[in-house]
């Protein structure tokens, strides 16, 4: 049986790698469709044809797109991320510090929102139909239905404008104490937690409700098992796969959320870098950021799938 699990996990990993290849291919070609010649844009209107041709050659722009794609992929794998068009700095240098910042923001958010949202999701599923469940459901649908920037601006209005607890949209760069650090992270983390939690609650609730309606749960009920025993011993272990899957999918909303939240709070992360790169049309930087985000997302999904495979009792 263990070799079966191993082969399934291996298959998942292969699919993940293939998907990442297709995605990076799509990202590369989407950004290569740009009308106009990059070398001409970089050098400006006054450039001589010789200079343009020279730059084109230096940037390998005169090679077929497939070759450029392979060169780019090889660079990504070996850690050579290329050079930013806008300020001529190595992309790895631009990204490294900001990558840590974004991971911090995402990590803290995940640490807070996962236990919080799992508790709400599972309890509202168990207490389905009660007032508590309805309040939770209405709130989550409300948060899911509105854009992230509305959640963020509402948080600013409440905590900064009316209550004056936290600074508004400005971002503090000097951190002198733990208090400063807390103030710095409070607003982005609170907003992101709301956005991500709503997704987790909704999906977890659906997964647990589905498990609770299976025949073996009914069987447990009929043989007289207590409510808590049914939930903790019978339903939850089986709902683990779907819940982890829901978690991974919800954390992908973290990526969309991070893009908006880093912009609105001026947080020096990788998403803000990418939005700025889109504004300046800095293609190599956009490509690299996009692939980093997609890879992050795929890693999450793949881990979730593997946990689902391992936790499936029928495979053990």
């Amino acid at each position, binding site marked *: 049986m263990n070799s079966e699990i191993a082969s399934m996990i291996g298959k998942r990993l292969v699919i993940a790698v*293939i*998907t990442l290849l*297709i*995605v990076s291919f*799509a*990202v590369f070609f*989407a*950004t*290569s*469709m*740009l*009308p106009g010649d990059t070398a001409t844009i970089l050098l400006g209107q006054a450039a001589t044809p010789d200079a343009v041709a020279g730059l084109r050659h230096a940037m390998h722009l005169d090679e077929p797109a497939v070759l450029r794609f392979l060169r780019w992929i090889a660079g990504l794998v070996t850690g050579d991320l290329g050079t930013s068009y806008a300020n001529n700095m190595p992309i790895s240098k631009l990204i490294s510090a900001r990558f840590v910042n974004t991971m911090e923001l995402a990590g803290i958010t995940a640490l807070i929102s996962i236990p919080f949202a799992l508790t709400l999701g599972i309890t509202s599923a168990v207490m389905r139909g009660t007032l508590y469940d309805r309040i939770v459901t209405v709130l989550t*649908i*409300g948060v*899911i*239905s*509105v*854009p*992230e*920037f*509305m959640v963020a*601006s*509402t948080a*600013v*209005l409440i905590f*900064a*404008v*009316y209550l004056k607890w936290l600074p*508004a*949209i400005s971002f503090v760069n000097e951190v002198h104490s733990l208090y400063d650090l807390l103030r710095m992270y409070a607003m982005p983390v609170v907003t992101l937690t709301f956005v991500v939690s709503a997704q987790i609650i909704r999906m977890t609730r659906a997964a647990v409700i589905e498990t609770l309606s299976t025949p073996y749960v009914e069987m447990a009920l009929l043989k007289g098992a207590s409510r808590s025993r049914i939930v903790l011993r019978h339903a939850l272990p089986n709902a683990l796969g779907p819940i982890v899957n829901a978690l991974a999918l919800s954390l*992908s909303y973290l*990526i*969309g959320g991070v*893009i*908006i939240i880093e*912009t*609105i709070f001026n947080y020096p992360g990788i998403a803000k870098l*990418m*939005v700025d*790169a*889109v*504004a300046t*049309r800095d*293609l190599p930087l*956009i*490509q690299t950021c*996009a692939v980093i*985000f*997609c890879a992050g*997302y*795929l890693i999450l*999904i793949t881990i979730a799938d593997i946990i689902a495979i391992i936790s499936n009792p029928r495979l053990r």
Partner: protein
Amino acid sequence: MMQSAPSTSAAPGIFGYTFSLVGILAFAVILFWAVVALFAPQIAPYPIGKIVDMDYFGPMSSKLWLGSDYLGRDMLSRIIFGARYTLGIALAGVLIASSSGVILGMAAAVVGGWFDTALSRFMDAMISIPSKLFGLVVVAAVGSSLPSLILTLAFIYTPGSYRFARALAVNVNTMDFITVARIRGENTLYLAISEILPNIIRPVLADFGIRFVFIVLLLSGLSFLGLGVQPPLADWGALVHENIQGLSFGSAAVIAPSIAIASLTISVNLLIDNLPRKIRDRSA
């Protein structure tokens, strides 16, 4: 198809009534925004570009119902015109996304084989790109003119629509009447349009509504980042973007467009949730 009693049998009396009331209210809000978008020039009290207030971020008053924006323009008029862009772009985008998704999904189900496998694998890979990220990449590549925005949004949401329609179509495809039609010698086009489409159209329409909400949210998000609808035009997301400095004064110029977006998206969600069960139920 069998004609069944309305789904109120499970929840009779006042419960069923309040449920449909929510649906009616939601529909009224959607209708309201549609009318506003259609007749914007007739409804708006001031021209959108006209500076009517000496002060910027002016307060709400009897002359300027929603105050003024960062240049002293009337916010109410700008929101009324913004409805045109938000609703128009999102509707065009979702029409293209859903129709191409459904056509490709039915084709994959009917044709099957390597065509189905290759298309599904490709669409699955596309789905695994987070939508906002996808939007950023494509906008960076093709720019944010109105037609390219519509096509970008349509392109991003086609894979989801495809997967949904394909899952439904594959189920229908195994039914006996399809086998009969195949034996009768009907061609693929007939199978898709006359046999499968009528059986999946209602869940597909519910999915259409959900996808419309996704597109409104993504469009607003892109515009909020300054990468969607470009000035001098402004949809609701762009209105929030250009007035974001007013947030620290608690200006209506930031809040009102956000509320407009929320009222639209929540209404569409509520309307779909309150459709009769037979229409809403879906397998995926």
